[in-house]
């Protein structure tokens, strides 16, 4: 498999200061955990969750360092249902009903922090900023800044649209509604673009093609390759990883998309590519 079968998990390593940030605990977290066990222990990491949909937290019970004493894990994420804490949503996967080990039995020190739109200082000059995206549950984009380099994620997210009738000939047309709808959609989209403005590397949801999206997937909370390439270019993004592939895509299909979209004609100065399993990018 070339482009990957695991659900989202991104490792951000800062070798010179020995810091580790992980974004999302999808099934990819299992392999990352195994790899970390072979590196220098104990593991100390900040784990940022974009949202609490299952495909983004399912790897957590299989993260080997969580079972090792001395591991220190700080888990951050947006909380969609106020009455359930992040600990319950993420750690709650480890009840006997689903999994043979309970969270209380984990040897690691795990702390949970709920996030909103905010900015935080992780020390050693690492700054993390968050931004709400457009997805059916609260979902955060992350912007990580370190020594003048900027890394951003914007997934899972769909572009905002004007959902009101815009055809003046339509009997239900309402000029005021149409105009306000247009204004709000444009404004919300530009807020997201501002968030990743000038990023050295952006990882962006591009699950569908524009055609697939218009035919079937409007309102599902995912982006299109065409829109993302244009938006990244507008925001002077240097490198763009097209991410969160549709689970039904084949490697051949994505290779075809690479030929079609990942070029200067389409993306201008932004260097775009389709994210692959285990791929390493140095900034």
């Amino acid at each position, binding site marked *: 498999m070339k482009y990957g079968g695991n659900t989202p998990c991104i490792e951000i390593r800062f070798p010179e200061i020995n810091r580790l940030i992980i974004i999302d605990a999808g099934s990819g977290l299992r392999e990352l955990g195994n790899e970390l066990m072979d590196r220098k222990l104990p593991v100390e990491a900040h784990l940022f969750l974009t949202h609490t949909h299952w495909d983004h937290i399912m790897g957590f019970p299989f993260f080997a360092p969580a079972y090792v004493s001395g591991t220190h894990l700080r888990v951050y994420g947006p909380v969609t249902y106020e009455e359930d804490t992040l600990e319950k949503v993420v750690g709650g996967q480890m009840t006997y009903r689903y999994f043979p080990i309970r969270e209380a039995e984990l040897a690691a020190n795990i702390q949970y922090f709920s996030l909103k739109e905010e900015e935080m200082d992780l020390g050693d000059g690492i700054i993390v900023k968050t931004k709400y995206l457009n997805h059916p549950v609260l979902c955060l984009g992350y912007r990580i800044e370190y020594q003048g380099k900027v890394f951003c994620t914007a997934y899972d997210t769909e572009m*905002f649209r004007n959902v009101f009738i815009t055809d003046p000939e339509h009997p239900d047309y309402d000029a005021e509604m149409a105009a306000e*709808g247009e204004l709000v959609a444009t404004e919300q989209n530009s807020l997201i673009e501002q968030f990743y403005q000038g990023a050295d590397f952006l990882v962006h949801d591009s699950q569908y093609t524009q055609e697939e999206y218009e035919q079937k997937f409007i309102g599902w909370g995912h982006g299109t390759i065409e829109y993302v390439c244009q938006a990244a270019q507008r925001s002077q993004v240097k490198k763009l990883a097209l991410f969160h592939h549709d689970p039904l895509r084949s490697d051949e299909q994505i290779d075809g998309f690479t030929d079609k979209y990942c070029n200067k004609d389409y993306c201008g100065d932004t260097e775009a590519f389709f994210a692959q399993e285990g791929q390493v990018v140095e900034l």
Partner: protein
Amino acid sequence: MSEKHLQTIQNYINKMPSLSTTMTKVLEVCNQPDVSANDLNKIISLDPVLTGNVLKLINSAYYALPNHVASLTRAIIILGINTVKNLALSTAVIGQMKNSTNKSLDMDNFWRHSICVGVTARAIAVQQKIAMHQREEFFLAGLLHDVGKIPMAHCFSDEYTDCLTLCKEQKIALHEAEMQVFGFTHQHCGRTIADKWKLNDNIAAAMEYHHEPEKSDEVHRLLIFSVAIADLYANIFAIGSAGNEYVDEERVLQILKQSNISWNKIAQMHGTIQKAIEKASIFLQVS
């Protein structure tokens, strides 16, 4: 005693407020395929309380948006048509029942159970390839299937506590315990509420027969089986609770066999269902 019980409950239901005209219209709109944002905006705008609730939701800690959202149009763009539609539907219905207090049923758990059954029934509808515009009916039928318990627990709290105890101790279903204590079940009371609110036949039938789908008319059968299975799902995974602590495994197998709905497929939807519950739960806080 059951005559007297029944009469008291009947009086209680008679005194419940009717659904507002706006709400009746929202229900109508929700059952139309492809409701337009324009229609939804206009209908909700007619009801200042409903408009207030939508805006309260988007400005709540749940979204924690940096800027205050003051217009419905803006809310629809940011939250989406479906969320606003479901919000309107659920706030109105739950709002009617939510203030009912009693000592026997934990109402937060009750509504969490109801929401789980609503979203699971709708997920089953999707799996059964039910037309888009009919899916909201599955959600509503699931959301409302147990509301007949509310007047029973409200008017006869001690007796209802006895039912809950019986259910646990004797390992019987709650409606069987109700039958022993009251001589009738929450399905009967649910039907009376459905008639009072003039809910459509499908939803009324789901409220009346969700424990005995085989007794309903053939036309309502798929909806009722979906609600019945969604109810089992909520009980097996202990998502919320409406007092029915006992899962009769034989009955589960029987219902699955009769309905031709595959448990494996439902289990595969576990993630999707969890997401939908999270999403729908906010409605309880705003209603």
